[in-house]
């Protein structure tokens, strides 16, 4: 077993509850030591997939391998995984150290070793001094730490986290994100993290699997997902994307040209699986669009519109521009670092343009 082999291999995992199929043909690997997120709206199957990894749910089909061992028929208590539950599932009849030490009773180690490991885990999650607190005396953040320590103390090969930060308020959540990331670097364990919050996923993860309707749409690094979404759904789920309708004209050498009709022509990078003649969208991120006052001629990757609203957000300004022929208003972020090109006020005619390298063609 070398460091290159994946820690988790999912092959054709299917999960049905009665007649309802919640996971279809899930097929990917998770690498050793990475912080991997399953991102998707509620009901996309991400939590079910996590519970299948934990052995709490059994897949209806397909195979799962963890660290080279096939997991079919292996119950939750025999798997090298531990989980941080969304509700934290702190045992209410036990105190902090009894909760954390719960799993160690099932491992053949001496009482002294167990005590030492619990103490170590308490220090790791910064719960010093709370060892004998009762479960019901803990705050939300403290419960979350107990749940984390309780799972980590068992030294799992994979730590599974089911939306562990969703119950915390915004400030605490942001602090915990940083801490979780640092913790993962320290312990070096593979983390599989379920979340519906795209910002959280982008902040924390080495790689993210975007899920929808029981399928994995794309697996990539945060940068890859943002820069090169492989479909409209991913583009819409991760960040904001402007979409200009067009028809694909030709593809050559990873470059494509499209006819936007009254919008002019577009060029950019084509997503996989689109062919000339097909209706597409030219997709451009808001911060990649340049906004200029006045009516420059419509040309390649340049369209005209009228500013309908401007929000000043401190570091940048957020423009909403109506472009005839484009359904949703175009959103443009403009850094306030730039010297005021301030003539483009609300109601002004503007020209929007972008570099071909920043445009992506996605199938409609």
């Amino acid at each position, binding site marked *: 077993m070398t460091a290159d082999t994946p820690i988790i291999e999912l*092959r*054709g995992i*299917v999960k049905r509850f009665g007649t309802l199929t919640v996971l279809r*043909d899930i*097929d990917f690997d998770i690498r050793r030591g990475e912080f991997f997120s399953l991102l998707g709206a509620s009901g996309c199957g991400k939590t079910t997939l996590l519970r299948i990894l934990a052995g709490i749910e*059994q*897949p*209806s*089909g*397909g*195979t799962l391998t963890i660290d080279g061992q096939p997991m*079919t*028929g292996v119950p939750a208590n025999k798997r090298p995984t531990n989980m941080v539950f969304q509700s934290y599932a702190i045992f209410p009849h036990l105190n902090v150290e009894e909760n954390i030490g719960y799993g160690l009773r099932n491992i053949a180690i001496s009482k002294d070793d167990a005590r030492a490991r619990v103490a170590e885990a308490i220090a790791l999650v910064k719960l010093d001094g709370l060892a004998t607190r009762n479960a019901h005396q803990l705050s939300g953040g403290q419960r979350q730490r107990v749940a984390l320590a309780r799972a980590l103390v068992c030294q799992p090969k994979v730590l599974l986290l089911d939306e562990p930060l969703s119950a915390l308020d915004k400030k605490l959540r942001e602090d915990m994100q940083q801490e979780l990331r640092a913790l993962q670097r320290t312990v070096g364990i593979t983390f599989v993290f379920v979340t519906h919050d795209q910002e959280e996923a982008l902040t924390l993860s080495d790689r993210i699997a975007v899920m929808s309707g029981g399928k994995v749409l794309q697996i990539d690094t945060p940068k890859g997902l943002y820069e090169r979404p492989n479909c409209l759904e991913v583009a819409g789920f991760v960040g904001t994307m402007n979409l200009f309708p067009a028809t694909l004209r030709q593809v050559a050498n990873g470059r494509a040209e499209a006819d936007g009709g009254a919008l002019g022509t577009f060029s950019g990078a084509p997503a996989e699986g689109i062919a000339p003649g097909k209706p597409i969208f030219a997709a451009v991120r808001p911060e990649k669009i340049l906004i200029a006052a006045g009516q420059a001629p419509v040309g390649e990757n340049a369209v005209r519109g009228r500013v309908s609203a401007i929000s000043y957000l401190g570091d940048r300004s957020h423009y909403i521009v109506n472009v005839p022929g484009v359904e949703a208003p175009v959103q443009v972020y403009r850094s306030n670092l730039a010297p005021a090109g301030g003539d483009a006020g609300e109601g002004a005619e503007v020209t929007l343009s972008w570099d071909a390298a920043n445009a992506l063609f996605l199938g409609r």
Partner: protein
Amino acid sequence: MTAVSEPVAASRTRDAERVRRWLRGYGLLSPALAVMIAMLALPVAALVLLSFWTQHGFELDRSPTIENYAQLVRLKDEPTVWFGIPFYFAYPVPAILMIKSLVMSLSATVAVIALAYPMAYFLAFRVTRNKAMWIILITIPFWTSYLLRVFAWKIVLGFNGAINSGLKALGIIDQPLEFLLYNPGAVVITLAHSWVAFAILPIYVSLEKIDRSLLEAASDLGDSKLKRFLRITLPLSAPGTVAAALLVFIPTVGDYVTPTLVGGPGGTMIGNLVQELFLKQNNAPLGAAVAITMMLIIAVIVAIFLWAIGYRRIRSRRM
């Protein structure tokens, strides 16, 4: 990537696992279920069987016959008149007692719901502190000896009882009021008192479950307090109220203790007849037939009642 077809062995393991899980569940259930079958299903079946046999003196005739049931409905020409109602039955006692029991039990049920609903409402909406204490206070009487609670009414209503002696001591009456005890009214009061605590809990639970924002919304939309109660609270607490009514009605029809202690000759119920047929007249088969008929009549009444009020609809409205 192409889908990897699922290995047959893995699928089998999963099915076997699910079946094993079911077997474990049924295994855990089996001792209690065995007791229930041996001590409820079988005895009731035996009771049914017995009702098709006949008793001749000390001899039990095991040849199957519907004679016992026929005896309950056999007609004659001369009616037995009871409260102005002519009964054309040759053996009118069971029919009269059945109707009497139903009327008394129904009156008691109505009284119970009328008494319990405001109390449940009070617990759900008015009590803010010491709620647990109040609930315990209300439930204690139900758990303490049924026999003694019924007997207490004998002390209250009796010829030399608390009411009579109290009124006499106060100089309000000279002679004890004899109409207090040993009549159907005494039975109904006692039944209502004995069961009212039992009825509060289901009603309370259904009131407590009502989302308070629904009430706020109703007020916001212009309902007065009374209208809001009639349009929101009452319909949403219907399932609990219906459950409470049934939990009182069904067992009280066959009650034995209350009519025996406070009913007197005029306040006897069908349960007294069953007891008498079994223990005094030594006619267990006829007693069994009476008991079974009583159960069937109760079941039919309950079914008609649930159908008439559309219980399924009421229940499904719960979110």
